[in-house]
C-alpha cells in the first residue's frame, strides 16, 4: 500500500448531511461517511436498494446520487460509465456503487459479476452486515453459521443458521476469481485502512471491489456503543481477515498476532447467545477460523 492516511490528513468536510435516518450505532452509514470523505464530491453514487438507500434520503446533497433497484446497481453503473465514455466525460468523476450483502451476494450477484467481467471502471462497495437488515433481519448468503435471524430463528429443534460453517458465500474470493484488478476487505473498526483502500481503488483502471464489514446493532442485537468494538473484535478473533488483492498477490492488514477467542466476539451479540454454552460448536468455530486464516495466508 502507498502512503497511509493519518487522522490529521482527513478532510473536515462532510459529504453525508446530518439527519440521516440510520439506527444508532449503524456501521454501514459510518463506512459510507468515510468512503465519501476519501472520494470527495467529484463522485457519482449508485446505491442498490438496502438500508443505505432508505437512510440516505436527501442526506448527500453535494453528490449526484441515484437509488436504484435491489439487484441492478452494477448494471446501472455500466450504463453510466459507458455513457460518460462516449460523451468524453469519463475522467470527470469517481463512480461508486454501494450495496448491502443481500444486494451483493444474493440478488445482485449476476449484475455484479457481469459488470466486473466486462471491465467497467468503477468501485463497488459492499457493506456486509450479514443479513437483510432493511426488511427486518432475514438471513442472507453471508449470514454466518449459528447466527439467529428472523428467518433462521432459534427454535427447539434448529438453532439459528445451520448450513456448514465453511459454506458462507465469500464474495471477495468470487471477485478474485473474476481477476478483478483490485479486491479488498475492510472493517468499520479500522476507518483509516478503509479510506486507504477506497483511495487506492479510485486510482485503479477497471473494476475494484471493497467488502466492508459493518456492524448492525438492530440486527445483531448488540449495544450501539459496541459497534466499533465488534468490528474490531471480528478482525482480532480472525472471523474477518483484512486484505488487499492486487496483481495476484494478497497483502494483509491488522492481522492479529495473537488471536482472541471467538467467544469474545460472539458474547456481545444477541444473535449468538444460544451458542455461548455450546462448547462443541464454539470449538468447531475456533477450528474453522484457524483453518481459514491458514488457508488465506497460504
Amino acid at each position: 500500500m502507498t502512503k497511509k492516511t493519518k487522522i490529521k490528513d482527513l478532510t473536515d468536510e462532510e459529504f453525508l448531511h446530518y439527519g440521516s435516518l440510520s439506527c444508532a450505532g449503524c456501521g454501514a452509514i459510518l463506512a459510507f461517511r468515510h468512503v465519501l470523505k476519501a472520494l470527495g464530491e467529484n463522485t457519482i453514487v449508485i446505491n442498490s436498494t438496502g438500508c443505505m438507500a432508505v437512510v440516505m434520503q436527501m442526506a448527500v446533497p453535494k453528490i449526484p446520487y441515484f437509488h436504484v433497484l435491489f439487484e441492478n446497481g452494477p448494471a446501472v453503473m455500466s450504463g453510466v460509465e459507458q455513457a460518460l465514455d462516449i460523451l468524453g466525460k469519463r475522467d470527470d468523476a469517481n463512480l461508486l456503487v454501494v450495496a448491502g450483502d443481500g444486494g451483493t451476494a444474493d440478488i445482485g450477484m449476476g449484475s455484479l459479476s457481469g459488470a466486473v467481467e466486462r471491465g467497467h471502471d468503477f468501485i463497488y462497495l459492499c457493506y456486509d452486515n450479514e443479513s437483510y437488515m432493511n426488511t427486518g433481519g432475514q438471513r442472507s448468503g453471508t449470514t454466518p453459521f449459528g447466527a439467529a435471524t428472523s428467518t433462521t430463528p432459534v427454535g427447539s429443534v434448529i438453532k439459528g443458521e445451520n448450513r456448514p460453517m465453511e459454506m458462507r458465500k465469500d464474495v471477495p474470493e468470487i471477485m478474485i476469481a473474476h481477476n478483478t484488478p483490485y479486491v479488498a476487505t475492510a472493517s468499520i473498526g479500522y476507518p483509516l485502512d478503509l479510506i486507504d483502500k477506497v483511495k487506492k481503488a479510485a486510482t485503479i483502471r477497471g473494476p475494484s471491489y471493497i467488502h466492508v464489514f459493518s456492524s448492525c446493532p438492530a440486527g445483531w442485537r448488540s449495544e450501539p456503543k459496541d459497534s466499533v468494538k465488534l468490528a474490531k473484535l471480528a478482525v482480532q478473533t480472525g472471523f474477518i481477515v483484512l486484505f488487499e488483492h492486487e496483481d495476484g498477490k494478497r497483502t494483509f492488514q491488522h492481522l492479529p498476532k495473537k488471536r482472541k477467542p471467538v467467544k469474545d466476539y460472539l458474547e456481545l451479540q444477541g444473535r449468538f447467545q444460544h451458542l455461548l454454552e455450546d462448547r462443541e460448536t464454539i470449538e468447531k468455530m475456533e477450528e474453522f477460523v484457524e483453518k481459514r486464516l491458514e488457508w488465506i495466508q497460504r
Partner: protein
Amino acid sequence: MTEEFFTGNRAAAEAAKLSRTQVVAAYPITPQTSAVEYISQFINNGEMKANMIRVESEHSAMSACVGASLAGARTFTASSSQGLQLMSEVLYFASGMRVPTVMGIANRTLSMPVNIWADHQDSMVNRDSGWIQFYCANAQEVLDNIIQAYKICENEKVLLPAMVCYDGFIISHVAERMDVLTQEQADMFLPEPNGSNRPLLDPKEPLQFGEVVYPDWYPDFEYKKHKALLESRETILEVAREYNELFDRSYGLVENYLTEDADIVFMGLGSLTSTTHWVVNELREKREKVGVLKLRVYRPFPDKEVIETCRNAKVVAIIDRDIGYGTTGMLYPDVTRALYPLDERPKCLNFIVGLGGKDVTPETIMNIYKISERALKGEEVDTVNWPDARIYD
C-alpha cells in the same frame, strides 16, 4: 432515401444507427438477436459511434439503458418474450425515472410450453408499465417508428420510454423492400442527442434520484406520469406530421382502411392487420361493407380515433394475438371501455388468433368475418372466439 431489401431486425438496427444512438445494451434472445448483431457490426466497422454493453441479462440491459440515459446518452435496446419478462421490473423503473429510451421488441409468446414464435403476449402484459407502445405491420414501419420514437420520447413534455413492437420472424426475419433515410435526412429530422432538457447525474450539479416517496405524495407522481403518457398523443401526432412533411410517409395514432361506411370493422395490432387489408379488399369486391382499423399506437390508447371509427359500425371484430387468461384478449377490454359511453354501441366481438406463431392467414380472417357477419344479421354468437384453435369439448 435509398431503396433496400431489409428484415425488420435490420430495419431496427439501421434506425438505431440513423438516430445516432450512443449506448446500446442488449442480451441475446430469439427472435431479437440479429437486430443487436447488426448494431455490433456497425459499431465494430466504425459506421456507428456508440458503446455496446453486452450485458449478462435483460434485467441488466434495461438497467444499463436507464443509467446511460441519466448520464446524458441516447440509448437503445431490443428484446423479446422471456427477456422482456425478466426486464419487467426495470420497465417501471425506466418510466418512473422518466427516461427517454427506445426499445425494439421482436414479439414472441411466453413459455410454457416452449415456443419461439410470434404473438403479442410479451409486450401486452407490459402495456401498463408507463411506456409508449407502437405496433408495426412491416419493416418500413419499424424503421420509421424507432426514429420518430426518439423525437417523441425526448420531448420535454413527454420524457417517457417507448417500445416499438414488431412480430417475431413474420417481420423480424422477413426481408422486404423499404426506403431507408440517409444519415443527412435522419439528422435533419432528429436533433443530435442532448440531455440538457432533463435532470442528469452530474457532479457539477448534484441531484438525488430514485428517492422514496411517501403515500401523501405518491399519487401526485403517478398522476404526472399518467398525464404525460396520455398527452404524448399530441407529440406523437406532431412528430408524425413533421416526418410526413420531410419524407412523405404518413402516420397517425391509428390507420383507417375503408372504415368510413363499414358495418364490420376489424381491429388489431401488427402484421395481421396487413392480412386483414387483403381480406377486406376481397370482401369489398363482393360489395361487403367492411374495413380495418390498425392501431399503430396502443399506449397511450387512441380513444378518440377508436370511437370515431366505430361509432357508426354495427360489429367491431377485435382481433387479439394474445390472451388474458380467465378473461378475454387484452385489446378487447380497451376497446369496449372506450366505446362504452356511446349511446348506441356496436356489437363487440373478440377473436383470439395467431398464438405462438400460428399463421394468421386470409382464411383465419375470413372465419372472423363469417362469425361477425352472423352477429351482423342478429344471430347469437360467442363474445370470445378462438377461430384458429382446435376446440375440445
